[in-house]
C-alpha cells in the first residue's frame, strides 16, 4: 500500500512538473531549470556516495560535458540534441579511463584527486585557444530549440528524469546491496563475492555520464561557455550542500535539498549578491554538526521515535516508514 502510494505521488508530481510551462512565465521556468540541474547533480553525487566515495569532481565532469557538447556542435557540426548524448558518452568514457587510476584510492585521497581533475580539465580548456576558445570561451550561433523557454525546460526535465531513473534503479537493484556493502565494510564485501572495483567503476561511470549530460544540456540552453562558467566550483559545492541538507544515501533526500536550497539561493541572489555562498557554507556546517543524516534522516528518526515505544512490532513499523521514504 505504502509503495503504491509513493508511486501515485511520484506520478502526480511528474505530471505537474511536465505541465509547468503551461502556467509559469519565462523567469520561473529559468529558475526551475537551475534547480533541476542542481538536483540532477546532487542525486548523481549521492549515487556514488552510496559506495562511500566522496567526489569533488562534479564540476569537472559537468564542464567536460559542456565543452564536449558545444565543441561537437561548433567544430564538428553535430546536431545539438545528439551532442548531448555525445557529451554524456565522452564524460562516461573519460570516467572509465580515469576510474582505473583513481578508484584504487579511498576517502580523502579519492576526493582530493577528483578535485584536482576538475582543475586539470579547466586548465586544458583554458589553454587550448584554437580548439576551445581559451579563456574567452565559445559561443554557439544559436541556442537549442531557438531558445524556446518551454522546450528548454522540458529538455532539462528530461535530463533530470534520466538521472532520477538511474538513481531509482541503483536503489532497487542489487547495486544497492553492493554499494552499501562496499561503504560499510570492504572486507566483508570481498569475502561475499563482491568485485569492489567493478561496482565502483559502474557507479563512477554512470554518475559521470549523468553529470556530463547535465553540463551539455546547460551549455546548449545558454549557447555559450567559458572555462570559468563550465568548471565553476559551485557545480560541485551546491549539489553537495543540497544532498547533505536533504539527506544522503537516498534519491528523495538530495531532491528535497535541491528544491529548498535552489529556491532559497535564487531569492538570496537577489537580496545579497554573492552573499548567498556564505549562507551555503553556514548550511553545510550546521547540517554536518547537527543533522548528519539531513532532513530526511531527522524525519526518519522522528517517525521511529513516535512509532517505536519499545515493542519490536513498532520498531519494524519505523523501518517500513524508512523504506517508504526512500
Amino acid at each position, binding site marked *: 500500500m505504502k509503495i503504491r502510494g509513493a508511486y501515485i505521488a511520484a506520478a502526480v508530481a511528474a505530471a505537474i512538473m511536465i505541465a509547468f510551462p503551461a502556467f509559469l512565465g519565462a523567469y520561473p521556468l529559468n529558475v526551475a531549470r537551475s534547480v533541476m540541474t542542481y538536483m540532477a547533480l546532487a542525486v548523481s553525487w549521492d549515487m556514488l556516495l552510496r559506495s562511500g566515495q566522496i567526489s569533488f569532481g562534479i564540476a569537472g565532469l559537468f564542464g567536460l560535458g559542456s565543452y564536449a557538447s558545444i565543441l561537437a556542435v561548433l567544430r564538428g557540426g553535430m546536431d545539438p540534441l545528439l551532442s548531448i548524448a555525445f557529451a554524456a558518452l565522452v564524460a562516461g568514457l573519460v570516467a572509465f579511463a580515469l576510474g582505473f587510476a583513481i578508484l584504487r584510492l579511498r576517502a580523502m585521497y579519492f576526493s582530493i584527486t577528483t578535485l584536482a581533475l576538475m582543475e586539470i580539465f579547466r586548465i586544458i580548456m583554458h589553454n587550448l585557444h584554437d580548439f576551445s576558445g581559451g579563456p574567452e570561451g565559445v559561443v554557439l550561433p544559436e541556442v537549442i530549440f531557438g531558445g524556446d523557454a518551454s522546450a528548454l525546460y522540458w529538455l532539462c526535465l528530461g535530463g533530470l528524469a534520466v538521472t532520477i531513473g538511474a538513481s531509482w534503479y541503483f536503489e532497487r537493484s542489487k547495486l544497492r546491496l553492493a554499494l552499501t*556493502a562496499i*561503504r560499510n565494510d570492504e572486507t566483508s564485501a570481498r569475502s*561475499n*563475492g563482491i568485485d569492489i572495483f567493478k561496482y565502483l567503476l559502474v557507479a563512477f561511470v554512470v554518475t559521470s555520464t549523468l553529470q556530463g549530460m547535465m553540463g551539455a544540456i546547460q551549455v546548449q540552453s545558454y549557447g555559450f561557455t567559458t572555462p570559468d562558467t563550465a568548471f565553476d566550483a559551485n557545480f560541485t559545492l551546491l549539489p553537495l550542500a543540497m544532498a547533505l541538507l536533504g539527506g544522503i544515501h537516498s534519491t528523495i533526500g538530495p531532491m528535497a535539498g535541491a528544491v529548498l536550497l535552489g529556491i532559497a539561493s535564487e531569492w538570496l541572489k537577489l537580496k545579497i549578491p554573492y552573499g548567498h555562498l556564505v549562507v551555503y557554507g553556514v548550511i553545510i556546517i550546521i547540517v554536518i554538526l547537527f543533522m548528519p543524516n539531513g532532513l530526511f534522516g531527522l524525519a526518519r528518526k522522528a517517525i521511529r521515535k513516535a512509532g517505536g515505544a519499545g515493542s*519490536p512490532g513498532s520498531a519494524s513499523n519505523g523501518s517500513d516508514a524508512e523504506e517508504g521514504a526512500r
Partner: protein
Amino acid sequence: MSKLSTTGLTKAFSGLVAVNDVSFAMEEGEILGIIGPNGAGKTTFIHLVSGILMPSSGRIEFKGRDVTYLPAHERSRLGIARTYQLIHPLENLKVLENVMVGAVFSRGKSLREARLSAEGICDELGLGGLDRDTAQLSILEIKKMEIARALANEPEVLFLDEVMAGLNSDETKQMIETVRRIAGERRMAVGVVEHVMGVIRELTQRVIVLEAGELIAEGPYEKVSKDPRVIEAYLGGAA
C-alpha cells in the same frame, strides 16, 4: 582430492613472519580445529586462504586448482567462505539483506531468489526478526547472521574465526550443535578457530596447532593436547 590444501604457505609483514611454511589439507565433511596461542597466526592463515591477504610465498589449492593469488571475491564464488573474529555486519542493510549479499554476489542469484535462500538459511539457524537493523541484534544473533551470510555463499569450505567468543555457555552449546548440523548436512570442510578447548574437543575430528606462524602439531585433539611441544607453546618453556 582435498577440498583445500596449502603447501609451504608463508606470510611476512616486513620482517615479522606471521605464517611460516604451513602445509595442510582439509577434506570433505571434516571439521578441523585451528588452535594456537594468541598471535600464533591463526587469523592471518585464514586471511591467506580466503584471499583477504596475499601470501609472500607458498601455494593454495582449492579442489586441485591453484588459487594462491586469486582475489577474495573470486574465491568466495568458487566456494571458500568465512566469518571474522571481529564482527563485520553491514550496518546500513537489514539483517536479511546482510545474508542476501552472499547469495546475490557469490551465487549470482536474483534478489528474489536470494531473499528466499537467505530466509531459509536464517530459519535453519534460528535467526528471526530479519527486517531489523543489525544494531538491534544481540552478539549471538550477529554471529548467527554472519554464519548465515557465509552459508548463503553456498561454500564447500567454511572458516569460522572464533564464532563462540563472547557467547555464554548455553549459547556456546547451541552454537556447537548448529555448526555440527550445518557441516554435516552440507558435507562442507569446516575450519574452526577457537580458544575454548572444550569446544574444540567436542566439535572437531582433527586439529592443527600453530605457534609463531609455524604448524607444530596435527592430529586428533586428544593426542595433540598431550604433545609436549603444544603444552610448551601454551604454557611457556618449563623453567
